[in-house]
């Protein structure tokens, strides 16, 4: 490879972010080179500076950030010295960007086609008519349904996976030399993710476009990238080509990333006695729309039932029925053999106490104005009538349980905690009511993998100590593998398969379970290629047709 092939050359890139009156470093001197047609994967947890570097490669810093040092050479042009107007002419035309949430990054006021044509027409690459024609071609290449027609819809009329593909097509509109993909599949379900990954990989290969692929998911980046760079808090940890990196990670941090998926709880004894919670033939609807159809399952003490499914499958609705937030139209929920009133307003305080919830977004589930003492203290006060010294003792005990030092944390506000610590407080708040049963609604999906694993281990330990029954709602099969005893697979409001974890992960599977299982990316860089070959042989629907 000669130097002529180098498209992007970043040296000693420093980016700072404003915190109050100070500028704090976000990226501390990163070097990065990218050759024409090459795909580089940027990996790191949240706060590692991946997106910031990606935008920096476009000479762009978000409000409240500034590029404070280093050099960014794009095809020989120094982006730090280029005028605002010159940068503007590069963006969209020669360097394009694909954002994490296409649903938020398409302008809701304009049709997809208008947004597609904007860059090529405004940058003078082609006329509107040519751009429209080209868009249909790219939509077809991206395997979007109705390529002739889909461009004339508004973003809200198109599904998330389709929008993500339409956004990739839009980034391709001027045939740029470089595309920055910023977590383009993180917000998607696994089955949709495959389609988008395949479409992105095809189109990048076809046009020989260089790309920076940013993600926190190793298995995903293994499918997409030629080389991988690992970041931790704004510093580079190591860089190598994909296969070497997967086979022989050098640095301890990299090894720890690789090892995250290894947690698996011990196999539990078979259930005995009556279930803590039974869902019996429950159907529920939002207005005229039926979202749950004849759903039944049992949850026993000291056991975890994982409810798995894609968005819209009805798993959260099932939780709403159990907690009484949404009275079902048919069926009932039993607690220790006795029927629970359908509406939470008719339940006794004790019935309410025994079913607690932990939420996905600890950020929004904790009142930001209350200290931890209040957050955890309230349920203990309300359900158990604890006051004064006894209450303080109980709060301290709960903090010990979730492995947080009471003296350090008891009077802090949620804003002074990290994401993982907030989720621990969410757990302590549920425990404060001394429940028999806890619903965990995607409790780890907003967390980085290492932090998430800590939460899973904690939940596992607490279950053993306190005889809890868990209902674990998740779309992530790795989490299921780690923590579940029993699995319920849901699709479009119905239970398609249920059984113990061992039964679920061993063939034969229900076709939908099979689809879910096979869609979870694996660390093998050839996984996507093999999977697509296998599916096309078996005559399974091609990506995009689903």
């Amino acid at each position, binding site marked *: 490879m000669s130097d002529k092939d180098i498209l992007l050359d970043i040296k000693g890139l420093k980016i700072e972010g404003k915190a109050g009156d100070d500028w704090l470093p976000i990226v501390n001197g990163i070097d990065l080179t990218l050759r024409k047609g090459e795909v580089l994967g940027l990996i790191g947890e949240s706060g590692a500076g991946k997106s910031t570097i990606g935008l920096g490669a476009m000479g762009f810093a978000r409000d409240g950030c500034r590029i404070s040092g280093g050099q960014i050479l794009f095809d020989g042009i120094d982006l730090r010295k280029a005028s605002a107007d010159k940068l503007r002419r590069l963006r969209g035309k020669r360097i394009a*960007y694909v954002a994490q949430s296409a649903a938020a990054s398409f302008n809701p006021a304009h049709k997809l086609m208008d947004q597609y044509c904007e860059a090529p027409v405004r940058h003078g690459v082609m006329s509107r008519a040519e751009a429209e024609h080209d868009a249909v071609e790219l939509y077809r290449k991206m395997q979007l349904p109705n390529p002739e027609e889909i461009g004339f819809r508004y973003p809200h009329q198109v599904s998330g996976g389709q929008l993500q593909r339409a956004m990739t097509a839009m980034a391709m509109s001027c045939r740029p030399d470089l595309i920055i993909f910023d977590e383009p599949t993180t917000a998607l379900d696994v089955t949709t993710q495959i389609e988008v990954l395949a479409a992105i990989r095809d189109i990048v290969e076809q046009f020989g476009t260089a790309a920076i692929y940013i993600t926190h998911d190793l298995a995903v980046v293994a499918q997409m990238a030629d080389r991988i760079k690992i970041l931790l808090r704004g510093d580079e940890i190591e860089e190598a080509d994909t296969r070497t990196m997967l086979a022989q990670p050098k640095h301890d941090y990299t090894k720890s990333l690789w090892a995250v998926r290894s947690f698996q709880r011990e196999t539990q004894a078979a259930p005995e006695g009556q279930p803590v919670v039974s869902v019996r033939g429950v159907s529920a609807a939002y207005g005229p729309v039926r979202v749950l159809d004849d759903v039944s399952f049992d949850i026993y003490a000291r056991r975890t039932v994982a409810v798995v499914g894609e968005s819209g499958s009805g798993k959260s609705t099932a939780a709403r029925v159990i907690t009484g937030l949404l009275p079902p139209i048919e069926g009932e929920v039993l607690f220790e053999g006795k029927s629970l009133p359908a509406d939470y307003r008719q339940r006794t305080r004790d019935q309410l106490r025994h079913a607690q919830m932990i939420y996905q977004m600890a950020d929004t589930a904790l009142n930001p104005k209350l200290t931890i003492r209040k957050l955890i203290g309230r349920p203990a006060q309300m359900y158990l009538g604890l006051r004064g010294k006894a209450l303080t003792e109980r709060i301290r005990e709960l903090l010990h349980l979730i492995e947080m030092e009471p003296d350090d944390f008891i009077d802090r506000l949620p804003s002074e905690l990290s994401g993982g610590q907030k989720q621990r407080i969410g757990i302590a708040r549920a425990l404060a009511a001394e429940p028999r049963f806890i619903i965990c609604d995607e409790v780890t999906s907003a967390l980085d993998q290492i932090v998430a694993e800590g939460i899973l281990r904690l939940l596992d330990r607490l279950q053993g100590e306190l005889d809890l029954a868990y209902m674990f709602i998740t779309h992530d099969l790795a989490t299921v593998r780690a923590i579940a005893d029993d699995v319920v697979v849901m699709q479009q409001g119905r239970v398609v398969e249920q059984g113990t974890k061992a039964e679920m992960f061993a063939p034969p599977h229900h076709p939908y379970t099979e689809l879910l299982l096979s869609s979870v990316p694996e660390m093998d860089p050839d996984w996507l290629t093999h999977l697509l070959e296998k599916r096309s042989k078996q005559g399974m629907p091609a990506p995009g047709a689903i």
Partner: protein
Amino acid sequence: MTLVLRMIAQRLALGLLTLFVVSLIIFGATELLPGDFAEAVLGQAATPETVAAIRRELGLDQPFYIRYVDWLWGAVQFDFGSSLAQRGRPVADMILGRLGNTLFLALYAAAMAVPLALMLGILAALWRNSLFDRVTNSSALSAISFPEFFVAYILIYILAQGGWFPSMARMPASADLGEKLYRSFLPALTLTLVVTAHMMRMTRAAIINLLSSPYIEMARLKGMRPSRVIVHHALPNAIAPIVNVVAINLAYLITGVVVVEVVFVYPGLGQLMVDSVSRRDIPVVQAVALIFAAAYVLLNLTADVISTLSNPRLMYRK
């Protein structure tokens, strides 16, 4: 489109209901006013007999609900009864000319204020935190902070004393449009200064509020010019809040301008309303209040329709 038509029909029906409730409140409120017309008009000569005679003659001795039903029945046929103060003169006659004047002045002021406010708001958002932004903001704020009559007198001091525009806006009956615009320029300018600030600041805030959205960042990363980002990407999504503030200000121009009318001796509805209240000329008060309420209802309806039209998520279902 049928969606919009249905919405308009629904809102009009609701608007009528609102007007009905308002009419009840107006009628009830005028009942509560201290004193009554007979005593007010007779003054020193009020003896129990004369008062009773006048009350009987005008139907004021009837119970509340009968008078209300009579009045409502007339009002739905645009017959608001006859004035008490100007014996026998139909209220509709008294109002019609005044209503025309009020609408003329409101339109005149709106035609200056709305485009000015939108333009300044968009430019202030585009060049936010610049000198232009700060100057526009502070001058708009000062204009809104002074009482209206003060702004009016300052304008009179500068523009009328200088001999450019008349300080009295009374029209000769024969005035043509140019003459009318010239004569009512000062009151219109005063109102423009008073209402521009609110609309301009809302436009600026509504646009700036959107600038941190991912789709605005996307537009920038597609290499769009800052002016295009603001006008093409932010503005269409900011229409709903802007239109609502414009509607409120237009309603104010119709219903709240009595001080300006007094200063410039402009014969509008506001003055008529105030005079009628002090003369206990209840039929006129009721009719004017109902017109004011109708103005609010219609303007808010228009704002809602425009907001809906501007939002594809409401116009085109999945």
